[in-house]
């Protein structure tokens, strides 16, 4: 017996508790979904039955159809709406839709209040698994530089009403045909498939692709993928996998920023640890320790970042300050939590894991056992350490981020030496470098919006590679110049590059021999 009737509009305020329980089955996902739907100002929702979900049908034919247990073929889809002024998705509106001509204006109004959908896949008994879910993300914020760049438009049809939602597809692992890593890849493919024109495999197909080169692994039930197996799946859809193990937080922020800015989703391998909280007799926290033995492995898909309250990078001996170091959090699709969940960088404090002093990422994960571990010790939450980034790239993006850093460092060092030679003053504070990958159309689109500057016309008329690396030099909070590297080039003989100057003093400095 389903707790809700189909094709009836419910008030979210009145039914939220029952609905969250129905969707998440009281797991650690409950608070995450509850917060997300509340933040999106959900006003009403409606359930659709007998929904045919393509990804589930493929998984069904790959596995569930040949189980003895009679799994259902159809899913349930829940649509969510907010309210704009007095306009809301109500029973009256539903009645109007079924009995009257729906005007363009009404369609547009419905689209404006649409927040997205959650598909519930059949499972054993009344417990359901969260299937393909596309929910609107939190508002983007230019001031705080909160961006969800690895997203795309999803086209939905409800009772013939065309609706559009900008999101990244999310779903939960079913622990049989797909574990977290397959789901993380599936989410990434749902964006790259549209961006680079490749087929978007279902979660079970992702698993099959990933282990197709590992003859020792069985397909299903699957127990998770290694970083290398994830890379194999990326190759099999026709993209080039880039597997990176970030050296530190600064490097991690630089990589996330550089690739996400181009709208490329990043699959992220994580080590999760329980945090052991040690208290005194009065329940005051004395210290927190990481329980090394509690390590578990997880994969998520990074789709956004925020620079809110981020601090400027400092000068150090490598002579390059990264703009990306201002990043304070990034957003991921975590199949064990919810879409666009945040992971926050520590402010610099380190904790000991084995012999290492590491900087953690805070998560919304609950500890595996939230019970007292003897007197004055308890576990409540988990922290994460990023172990790997696997980036699905278009095959023509050949020059890596590390190559660009090296080249930018060289150019920056030469420029500073020249400055000292000419002006006789040592530069104590170097440029802040904003380094990221870009499609040339986006680059020119940005240039065209700039007010007049020397060479603007020449730049717009000039021919560039389809993908470019942009290294923008910022000083005193102003863009001074940028180097546009050909991302499709070979490293041999130096990477092809062009300079764009926004400051004539710098331009003259470059011209001086």
């Amino acid at each position, binding site marked *: 017996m389903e707790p809700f009737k189909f094709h009836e509009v419910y008030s979210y305020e009145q039914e939220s508790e029952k609905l969250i329980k129905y969707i998440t089955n009281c797991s650690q996902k409950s608070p995450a979904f509850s917060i997300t739907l509340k933040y999106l100002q959900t006003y009403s929702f409606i359930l659709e039955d007998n929904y045919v979900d393509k990804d589930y049908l493929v998984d069904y034919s790959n596995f569930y159809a040949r189980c003895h247990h009679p799994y259902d073929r159809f899913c349930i889809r829940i649509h969510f709406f907010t309210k704009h002024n007095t306009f809301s998705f109500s029973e009256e509106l539903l009645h109007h839709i079924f009995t009257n001509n729906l005007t363009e204006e009404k369609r547009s109004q419905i689209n404006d209040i649409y927040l997205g959908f959650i598909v519930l896949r059949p499972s054993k008994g009344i417990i359901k698994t969260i299937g393909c879910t596309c929910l609107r993300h939190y508002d983007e914020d230019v001031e705080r530089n909160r961006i969800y760049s690895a997203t795309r438009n999803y086209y939905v049809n409800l009772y013939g009403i065309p609706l559009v939602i900008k999101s990244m597809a999310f779903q939960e692992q079913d622990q049989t045909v797909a574990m977290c890593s397959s789901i993380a890849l599936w989410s990434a493919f749902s964006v790259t498939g549209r961006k680079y024109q490749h087929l978007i495999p279902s979660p079970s197909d992702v698993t099959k692709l990933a282990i197709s080169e590992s003859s020792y692994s069985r397909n299903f039930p699957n127990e998770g993928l290694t970083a290398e197996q994830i890379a194999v799946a990326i190759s099999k859809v026709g993209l080039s996998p880039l597997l990176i193990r970030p050296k530190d937080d600064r490097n991690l922020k630089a990589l996330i920023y550089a690739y996400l800015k181009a709208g490329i989703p990043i699959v992220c391998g994580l080590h999760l640890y329980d945090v052991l909280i040690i208290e005194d007799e009065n329940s005051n926290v004395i210290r927190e320790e990481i329980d090394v033995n509690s390590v578990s492995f997880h994969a998520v898909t990074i789709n956004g970042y925020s620079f809110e309250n981020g601090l400027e990078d400092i000068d*150090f*001996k490598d002579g390059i300050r990264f703009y990306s170091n201002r990043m304070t959090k990034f957003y991921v699709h975590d199949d064990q939590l919810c879409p666009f969940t945040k992971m926050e960088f520590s402010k*610099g404090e380190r904790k000991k894991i084995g012999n290492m002093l590491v900087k953690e990422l805070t998560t919304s994960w609950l500890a595996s056992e939230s019970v007292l571990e003897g007197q004055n010790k308890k576990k409540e939450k988990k922290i994460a350490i990023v172990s790997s980034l696997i980036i699905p790239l278009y095959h023509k993006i050949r020059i890596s981020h590390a190559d660009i850093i090296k080249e930018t460092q060289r150019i920056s060092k030469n420029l500073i030496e020249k400055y000292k030679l000419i002006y006789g003053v040592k530069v104590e504070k170097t440029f802040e470098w904003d380094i990221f990958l870009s499609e040339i159309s986006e680059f020119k689109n940005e240039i065209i919006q700039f007010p007049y500057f020397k060479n603007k016309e020449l730049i717009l008329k000039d021919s560039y590679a389809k993908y470019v690396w942009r290294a923008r030099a910022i000083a005193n909070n102003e863009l001074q110049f940028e180097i546009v590297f050909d991302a499709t080039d070979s490293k041999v003989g130096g990477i092809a590059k062009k300079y764009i100057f926004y400051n004539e*003093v*710098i331009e003259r400095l470059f011209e001086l021999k």
Partner: protein
Amino acid sequence: MDRIDSLLTFVNDSLDEKDRITYATSLDALKKKFENANSSTSLDNYSVECLSLFNKAEIGLPQELYKGSSLDDVNAYINDLARDFKQFMCNALKNRDVNLSSTANDTWKNSLQYLIGAIAAQAGLNNFLIVIFSCSIIQYCIANNIDNLCRDDNNMTLS
């Protein structure tokens, strides 16, 4: 007791019995580094070199974990640590009247204590790496007559 001996005593006091034996050679090398603090190397290199002297497994530097891995990874880790310490130091010195190179009436001891406390509070660690870093900075600043490392008064003039 002269300044270098005092600084080495600070470092020594932050070690336990076992570590004093483990790092006996490192402490000797640190003494030499302190004596040569006014050589041409930059502050960043100097602090990294001082921290690197203590690259043993037990204190959080990564020799064990990175066994079989490249030296680049080890260096990247130490650089990251030193960069963080520098960031904490600059945060601590911001809007504070702390002269790192003043030796009048042993004010350098107060500066050192201030630095250690401020960095430890931000880093969430009470690790002797903080003591090594802070001692190295003080010695470098006094040897090179630098009163504050984090001032932005030599910004690039662009117009």
